[in-house]
C-alpha cells in the first residue's frame, strides 16, 4: 500500500457556500482594527459578534438536527474556521465545537441532546484536557472521589473565562471518563487566566476541586476512549485550518508591503531575496489548503479511520510550520517597522507560536505519522 495512497479531496456546494459566507462575514465584521480592539479585553471577543455567529448557525454546523444543529458534519466546520483564521477572529467557536463533538461522540446523540441543544443555541463550552504542557501525556490525575466530587485541576483550558460549560477529562475506575461542569459550579477563584503569547486567544488554569458531579453529568464507557482520540485529531485539524487561514492573510500582508515599500529607489518586492521566500510561503499555504480539505473529506460520520488520522496529522504538521515561517518572514521583511507592536506582523508571529503548540506540534505529529506510515 502506497504511503501516498489516498488523495481524496471533495468539496460540496454547501461547503463552498459556507466558505463564501464566512469569508465575507469575517472580512466585514473582523477587520484588523476590530481584532486589535480585543487584544487586551478579558474575554478576547465581542459578545454581540458571537451572537451573530450563533444566529448564522455556526455553533451547530456539526451537530445533529435533533439537537438543533444542521447536521453538516465537521467537514463543513473546516471552511468556517479557515475563514476565521484569515481574519484573525478569535471567539470560542473552536473550543465550543470541540467540546460539543467530544460530548456527542462519547455520550451519544440521545443522552446529550439537551446539553448539545444549548450549545447549538449559543452556550459557550470548552474541554478541560491538559494537566501539564505535554500533548503526548496520557496519564490523567483529575478524578472523582467516592462522594462524586471532583479532585484536581487543569491547565491550558481554552476560553475558560468565557465558557458556560466545561467537559472535564478525568480518570474514573481506571478508565478515562468525562464530567460536565457548569461555570456556576466553580468557586470564585477557580479560574486563573494565563498570559498568552497570542493576544487574540484566552486560556486559563482551572481548579475543579470540590465540584460535585451529578450522575447524569458523568460520561463513562468505551466510547470515551475513542472520542478522546478523535478529539485530539479534530483539534489538530481545526487548529490547522485556522493556521492555514492566518498564513494566507499573513502572505497578503507581506505581499502588500513588498508592493508598496521602496528602498534604494526600488520596490522591495523586486528583490529576489524577498520574492523567492514569499513564493515559498505561497506554495506552503497552497499545500496547507490541500491538506486541510483532504482531511475534511475523510472525516465521515463516526470514529476517524486510519486515513483520516493520517490526513489530520499531516494537516497539523504542515499548517502550523507554514504559519511559523510566514510569521517569522513577515516580521523580517517589514524591517524596522516589523519590530514594532504597531505592525500587524506581530499578530501573525504570535499566532504562529500559539498554534504550533495546540494539539501537538509538528514533531509530535510526524512522530506518530512515522509509525503509521513506516512500520
Amino acid at each position, binding site marked *: 500500500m502506497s*504511503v501516498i495512497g489516498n488523495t481524496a479531496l471533495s468539496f460540496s456546494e454547501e461547503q463552498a457556500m459556507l466558505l463564501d459566507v464566512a469569508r465575507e462575514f469575517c472580512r466585514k465584521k473582523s477587520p484588523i482594527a476590530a481584532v486589535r480592539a480585543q487584544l487586551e479585553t478579558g474575554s478576547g471577543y465581542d459578545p454581540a459578534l458571537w451572537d451573530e455567529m450563533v444566529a448564522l448557525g455556526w455553533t451547530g454546523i456539526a451537530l445533529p438536527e435533533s439537537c438543533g444543529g444542521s447536521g453538516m458534519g465537521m467537514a463543513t466546520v473546516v471552511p468556517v474556521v479557515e475563514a476565521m483564521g484569515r481574519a484573525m477572529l478569535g471567539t470560542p467557536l473552536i473550543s465550543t465545537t470541540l467540546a460539543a463533538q467530544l460530548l456527542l461522540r462519547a455520550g451519544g446523540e440521545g443522552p446529550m441532546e439537551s446539553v448539545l441543544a444549548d450549545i447549538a443555541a449559543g452556550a459557550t463550552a470548552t474541554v478541560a484536557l491538559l494537566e501539564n504542557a505535554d500533548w503526548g501525556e496520557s496519564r490523567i490525575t483529575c478524578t472523582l472521589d467516592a462522594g462524586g466530587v471532583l479532585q484536581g485541576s487543569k491547565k491550558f483550558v481554552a476560553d475558560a473565562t468565557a465558557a458556560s460549560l466545561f467537559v472535564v477529562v478525568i480518570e474514573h475506575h481506571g478508565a478515562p471518563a468525562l464530567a460536565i461542569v457548569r461555570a456556576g459550579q466553580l468557586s470564585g477563584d477557580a479560574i486563573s487566566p494565563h498570559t498568552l503569547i497570542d493576544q487574540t486567544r484566552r486560556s486559563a488554569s482551572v481548579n475543579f476541586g470540590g465540584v460535585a458531579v451529578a450522575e447524569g453529568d458523568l460520561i463513562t464507557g468505551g466510547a470515551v476512549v475513542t472520542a478522546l482520540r478523535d478529539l485530539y485529531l479534530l483539534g489538530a485539524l481545526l487548529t490547522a485550518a485556522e493556521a492555514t487561514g492566518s498564513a494566507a492573510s499573513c502572505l497578503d500582508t507581506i505581499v502588500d508591503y513588498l*508592493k508598496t515599500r521602496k528602498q534604494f529607489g526600488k*520596490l522591495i518586492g*523586486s528583490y529576489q531575496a524577498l*520574492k523567492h521566500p514569499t513564493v515559498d510561503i505561497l*506554495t506552503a499555504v497552497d499545500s496547507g489548503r*490541500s491538506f486541510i480539505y483532504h482531511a475534511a473529506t475523510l472525516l465521515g460520520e463516526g470514529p476517524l479511520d486510519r486515513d483520516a488520522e493520517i490526513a489530520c496529522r499531516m494537516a497539523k504538521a504542515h499548517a502550523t510550520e507554514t504559519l511559523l515561517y510566514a510569521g517569522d518572514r513577515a516580521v523580517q521583511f517589514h524591517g524596522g517597522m516589523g519590530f514594532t507592536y504597531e505592525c500587524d506582523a506581530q499578530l501573525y508571529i504570535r499566532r504562529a507560536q500559539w498554534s504550533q503548540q495546540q494539539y501537538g506540534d509538528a514533531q509530535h505529529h510526524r*512522530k506518530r505519522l512515522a509509525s503509521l506510515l*513506516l512500520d
Partner: protein
Amino acid sequence: MSISKQEAKDFRDQVSAWMKENKPADPGFLLPQTFMEVGDERQLEFLREWQHKVWSAGYLGMAWPEEYGGGGMERGYQAIADQEMRRHAVPICFNVIGLGWAGPLIIDMGTEREKARYLKGILSAEDIWCQGFSEPDHGSDLGNAQTRAVRDGDEYVLNGQKIWTTMGNFARYMILLARTNPDAARKYDGLSYFLAPMNVPGIETRPIRKITGEYGFTETFFTDARIPADCLMGEEGQGWKIAMQTLQYERGAEAGAAGGLMMVRVTIDDMIEELRDVARDGEPVLKDPVMRDQLVKMIMEEKSIALGDRRARVPALTSDYPHSLMLSHKLRTTEMTRRMRQFAINLQGAAGGLYVGDPEARQGGFWQRAYFNSFSATIGGGTSQVQANIVAEHILGLPK
C-alpha cells in the same frame, strides 16, 4: 464509439500477460529513466529493440492511423497499454521526441508525403528524432533563435549552433527551428520550421558529458549544411507558430502522442522499499527517529503535490490565486524530486559514497545518478529561480 468495460478488461488482461511474458531481463547495466539519459550504444540498442518489440506487438501508436504504421484504434486502448507498462515497470519507449512531439505534429499539420515518410520509422524506432530549438546564448528565449537557413535553389543552407540536443548523436531527423528572414519586423516572423535530416555533410554533433559522467545531450553545429528544400514544414515564417504547437505536445496539453512509457516514475514508496534493509546504529535505518522525521516530511511533500493536483480541479478552493497550483507545479515537483533523491543517498550510510560502476553500489548507483540527473528538471525548461520569479510576478503580482 467507446470501449465497453468488458472490452477494456479483456484488453488489459491481454496487455498484462504480454508484458509479463516479454519484460526484458535486467541487462546488467543501468537503464535510462528518461529519454534524456541515453548515453551509449549499449543502452540505445537495448531500448531500440524494446520499443520495436512493443510496437510489433501492437501496443504503441495504437491510435495513430493504420496506413502509417499505427493501430487505427480508440485512444483509450493506448491509455490502458501505458498503464500496464507502468505497472509492470518495463523499460521506457525512448524515441520520445518522435513519439510525443514530432509525430503528433506531423499527423495534425503535416502533408501526406511527410506522414508517409516519417511516421512509421518513429514507431518502429528505426528513426530516432531529436529537437533543435535551444541555442547556447538563448537558453530560454526561443523566439530569438539565430541559426540561419538560407534558400539556395532547391536546398536550404544551414549555419549556426544548437545545444542540449537530446540523442543528437543517434538521431536521424531533427525538428529544427531556424531563421530564414533576419530582417522580419517581428523576430518571431523570421523563423521557419524544418524536418531536417542529420546525416548530411556540415552537421556535426559533439556529445556533452553530464555531471553523472554520462552522455545524453549533444551540441549540434551547422556549417554550410545543405538540406533539401522540401524539409521545410509549412511555409517560411511559420516557424514560431509550429514551434508553439510542438510545445503544446511537449507539455502534454494536447493529445496525440503515440504512447508508451516515457519515463520511469520514482516515488517515495520506491525509496522506502529499497532502503528497508539499510542499517544505522545497528538497527534498520527506518527505525532511526531522526531519519523517520525526515522521511515523513518527504512523504508529506510528495503527498501535497498529489493533493494539489486534485484541489486545482475544485474551483471553490482555488479562488485566491486561481492559477498558482498550475504555475508553481514544475517548481514544486522538480525541487521535491531533487531533494528526495539526495536524501536517498543520505540514507545509505557509507554506501552513499559509491557510484555507478561500483559492484557494491546500491541498485547500481541508481539514486546517485538519479540525484544528479534531477537537475535537468530544476534547470531545464526554465530554472527554479526563473520559475519562482514567474510565480512571484504572475501570481502574487510582485514587481519585476
